[in-house]
């Protein structure tokens, strides 16, 4: 059993334990997180969409479920869950597009359970979550008409995108609709940064749940991330020190 494996176990167990603690322990002062303007603007966009009866469009990227980047899609699903509950008062349920079949099914399930818990099960329409293509480009190309035709006022692009995200952000700019975009892929992040109205950078994607009050576990995740972040910083710093000291 090599060092890496042990360290890995330690890290994972530590993270899990911390998350458990943070999500169970109720504190008087809830943790405060830095302001990410994109999320407050998103809230407003959602509110507006609800009132003027326009739609939200979620797009989850093309990540398969059984690859490391699937986590971005899972984070996006957590957000969909929450937003779907909030928008269950609207008669235009959000439309979800995805470039991976399993992801589409998950989006359907998420919508379904969200409406169920909002006592609005009648809103659930399996066709609200759609597979728009099986290759990255065809997925994006298939999502473009939805963004144009279905009275979408806000696009939330979260998940694993590639270059194709540019088509989505560009379309939404042509439609002058709100766009919040986040992805775990670096080139796509560069595109998003340049083309999307409300880009989220890197890790902020995984904070979405906490910023839409998706529950204590999400908040706990952020706290754990911060702790681990400083662990890494400490590790790097100590490594640098050792190098400078000549070891």
């Amino acid at each position, binding site marked *: 059993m090599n060092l890496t494996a042990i360290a890995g176990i330690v890290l994972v167990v530590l993270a899990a334990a911390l998350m458990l603690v943070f999500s169970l322990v109720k504190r008087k002062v809830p943790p405060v997180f830095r302001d990410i303007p994109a999320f407050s603007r998103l809230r407003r966009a959602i509110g507006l969409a609800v009132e003027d009866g326009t739609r939200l469009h979620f797009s989850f990227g093309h990540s398969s479920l059984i690859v490391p980047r699937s986590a971005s899609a899972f*984070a996006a699903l957590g957000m969909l869950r929450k937003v779907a509950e909030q928008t269950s008062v609207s008669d235009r349920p959000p439309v979800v597009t995805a470039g991976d079949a399993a992801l589409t099914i998950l989006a359907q399930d998420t919508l379904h359970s969200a409406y169920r818990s909002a006592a609005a099960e009648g809103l659930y329409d399996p066709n609200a979550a759609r597979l728009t293509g099986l290759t990255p480009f065809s997925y994006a190309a298939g999502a473009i008409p939805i963004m144009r035709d279905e009275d979408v006022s806000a696009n939330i692009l979260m998940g694993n995108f590639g270059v194709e995200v*540019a088509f989505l952000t560009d379309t939404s700019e042509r439609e002058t609709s709100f766009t919040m975009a986040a992805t*775990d892929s670096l080139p796509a992040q560069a595109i998003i940064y*340049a083309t999307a109205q409300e880009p989220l950078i890197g*890790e902020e994607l995984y904070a979405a749940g906490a910023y839409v009050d998706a529950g204590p576990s999400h908040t706990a995740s952020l706290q754990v991330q911060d702790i681990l972040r400083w662990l890494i910083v400490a590790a790097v710093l100590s490594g640098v020190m050792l190098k400078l000291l000549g070891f």
Partner: protein
Amino acid sequence: MKRPIATAIAIAIGLIVLLGYFIPLPILTSVRIELVQWAIILSGVAVLVGVINLFSVHLKKIREKEKGAVYSLFLIAALLLTFILGIILGPDHSTMQLMFESVVIPVEASLMAMLAMTLIYASIRLLRRRSDLMTVVFLITVLLVLLGTAPLPFGPLPIVGDLIRPFIAQVLAAAGARGILLGVALGTLTTGLRIVFGADRPYGGR
């Protein structure tokens, strides 16, 4: 009652596969590989479900004469034709190859080509959208890297190509990329754990 079952499955599989990563017991590793192999099969089956979803969505559009139903007709026709041909002839048959090369490649390549305009447009508009230091740095970097990527029509610029670009690529960009990757990994870790321990259940429930 199905929810607990699903959750239990998710947690169990998640833990086993996770352990398979870290505890190098051969049996655990092989179990993990087998489980993941099944997952691959499942996602393959899911693709078929997804295609049916794609089909039904557009069929519905046509039936209810929604906006753009005509186009859906094209999609369904193309989908059925390709899929059926693919089943009959097999995906690596020359006809499939022909369809692929005459439809998929040109369209994707053209979309990619249009990206050139889109990106230029975006970088022009960027300062209108967000005029802050970060944006300025971003654009300057783009400019420098581009200058270093291809020589100007009237010959390469000194320094930029052989000093600045490499420095940006190997040092500055590498540092930023590494920081972002680490952050993403942290997010991935916690998000994954939430699911492994059943706090998030995107497969329904809660």
